[in-house]
């Protein structure tokens, strides 16, 4: 299971839904400080990647999203190839449909919360419903600058979930939420993943977040990914 190169027929091992997940990434990104060098086929739908800051966690997510122009290698989801530098395939980000929640949320500052949530094209009803499940209903007409850090994180999450993502890429998504809220939101994300068959890749330095969301853990140290026994 840890052997990324091994052929896998089914997703297996996922307690949450039966998704043929098949994310495979063999990526090398030359960075200033370290080289990110990952050969990776996770065994579960929901994986957490833990590691100290500077280990390349965010870069791995960006490479999966197609935002790292320097990335080389192969990335595929199921039988769809996203990146294959040998044959020159590099699917543009907007076709990959990843639900990326960046660490510093990056809410569009010139749009209200409602407009942020509806950005990918959701109707008003969907937006209202999402806002409700993230406890944001009262804030919909505000601009991002009037929100707390935790509120921003929830908006960023909602915005990603409303874009019909095929995989969720979460970068420290709960860091500004307090514990009870964190559990509640995590449960909501898991429910979303189960209902839609969306795999999750969580990047965090927080063991607790990993427990809440992921079935499988990996450690990223100095650009190298290894299985974490826990």
């Amino acid at each position: 299971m840890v052997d990324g190169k091994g052929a896998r027929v089914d997703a297996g091992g996922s307690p949450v839904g039966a998704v043929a997940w098949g994310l495979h990434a063999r990526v090398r990104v030359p960075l200033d400080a370290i080289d990110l060098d990952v050969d990776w086929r996770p065994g579960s739908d929901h994986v957490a990647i833990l590691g100290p800051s500077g280990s390349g966690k965010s870069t791995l997510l960006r490479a999966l999203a197609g935002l790292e122009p320097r990335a080389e290698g192969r990335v595929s989801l199921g039988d769809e190839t996203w990146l294959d530098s040998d044959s020159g395939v590099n699917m543009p980000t907007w076709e990959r449909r990843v639900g990326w929640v960046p660490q510093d949320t990056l809410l569009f500052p010139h749009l209200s919360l409602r407009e942020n949530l509806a950005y990918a094209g959701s109707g008003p009803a969907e937006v209202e419903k999402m806002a409700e499940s993230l406890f944001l209903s009262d804030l919909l007409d505000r601009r991002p600058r009037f929100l707390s850090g935790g509120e921003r994180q929830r908006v960023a999450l909602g915005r990603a979930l409303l874009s019909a993502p095929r995989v969720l890429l979460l970068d420290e998504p709960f860091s500004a939420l307090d514990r009870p809220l964190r559990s509640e939101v995590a449960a909501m994300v898991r429910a979303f993943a189960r209902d839609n068959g969306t795999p999750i890749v969580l990047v965090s330095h927080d063991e607790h977040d990993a427990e809440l969301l992921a079935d499988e853990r990996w450690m990223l140290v100095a650009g190298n990914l290894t299985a974490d026994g826990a």
Partner: protein
Amino acid sequence: MYTPPPTSLPLFGPLPNLGHCQGPNTLLARAGRTGLARDLRVGCRLPLHLSKEWLIWVAAVQLFMGQPASADGISTTSAQETPEALVVLAAASLQDVLPVVARAWREVTGVPIRFSFAATSVLAPQIFRGAPADVFISADEVWMQWLEERGGVDGLSVRPVATNQLVFVVPTGTADPPGDSRSLAGADLAQIALAAEDTPAGRYARAALERVGAWTAVEPRVIRGGSVRGTLEWVARGESDGGIVYRTDALAEERVTVAFAFGDDDDPIPTYPGAVTARTEQPEAAGAFLDFVSGAEAMALFAASGFGPAGDGTGVAQVPSLASPALDPWSAVRLSLIVAFSAVLLGLVPAVAVGWLLARRDFPGKSFVSMLVMAPLVVPPVVTGFLLLTVLGRESALGGLLAAMGFPIPFTLLGATLAALVVGFPLYVMAIRAVFDTVDRRFEEVSWTLGVPKLPTFRRIALPLALPGIAAGAVLAFARSLGEFGATVVLAGNMEGQTRTIALAVYSLLESPSGQGATWTLVIASVMLSLVALLGFERLTRWQRRRIEDHHGGR
């Protein structure tokens, strides 16, 4: 007769670019007429407009400080010997010949001469304001009379020094040029270039045409430039089919041929009157110099450069002192606004594209593109105008194509707009580039992950976020367009209601002894407009800063 008192002269010394003696002319390669002249012409041969402008500013500053008016580069001698140097302020068109005369004078008397050459319209007010000059030689009797009436010169000393002649020139090689001034009315010439109506040359030319009854027929075809030299350049380049200039200027230019001279007995003779200033501390020496300059030996030197004899001195042919043409200041203000707005609109898409490209993309030749775009910021505007005329003039491939498509550039409103745009473009692009540098591009990345491709993302995210910066750039370009002078006068001329914007109108008014009242309207309008524009820029910059802080502030 010359109503407004000179105290209303708004600026002491020239406006930038007002250094009339130079303007576009310094670019023209001029063959030295005599070896002697070439030796002496050190300062006036400085190749670029800026240098000349700088010299004029230096002269202006020196005047303020109460020091001698000549800039060092222009003086032909140093004043280390005992005989105190005479300071002579003289019309720019004499800058080749007078130093030769001064050398002859010095050989006789040992008294050195220091010159300051500029447009008569610049020099006369300087003398009135107390420039420590000893002798003034004007290109124009009107200005001399103006000064005399105000006690700036010793009226008894006024005398003609030399004369010039108006000639009609055509581009060299023109078949069948008109043979005399009467035939101009019917001649097959699309455009006839004249110096601005407030300059002596412009006034003389109009008077000569009126005298033969050709003015009405010619007027619709007249394109007005600034100085005589600029007018000459248009003819030399074939932008104009013919033009009226001074004989002395025409002789030095190989690309034009003199078709005929305005020489009828009745024609006014362009005369250079000289006088001893009222404030001189060396009236005898100054008078002696004036005697020498109008004497036989000097006359021969003048003649060698194409000037005519000063006449018998009994009576100077009276210059037609046409009242300054009714210049409507609001027409200039309106035109300035039209030009500035059009330039900003026309430049919007290119400025956003180039600004974005420079901020966000790396490509081969990027620094070259950046340099090219920024060049008009540092290149003197007259040089920019000269290059634009070269690229877009009737004789060029591109200019010919545009003219054939119905968009002629030179001497048109479009030309004025284009000149304003090119000169304002660097500021436009700089502001936009800066804003794209500061807008976090990860916003665009998030948009991509949400399934929105590049172009819609640009429209929905990058553009709105950059909007304050784009608006700031537009305001800066607008403000710069309002102030544009040099490139406009070269490319588009100085034509009332068509290309005469505020800056050109002020320039024209300052050229005229009677024009200084309307100047204030324009000066105030121009300062107000510029301040409003800059205030707008300030506001927009603050708006942008607030947006960026919003983003970086929270989390």
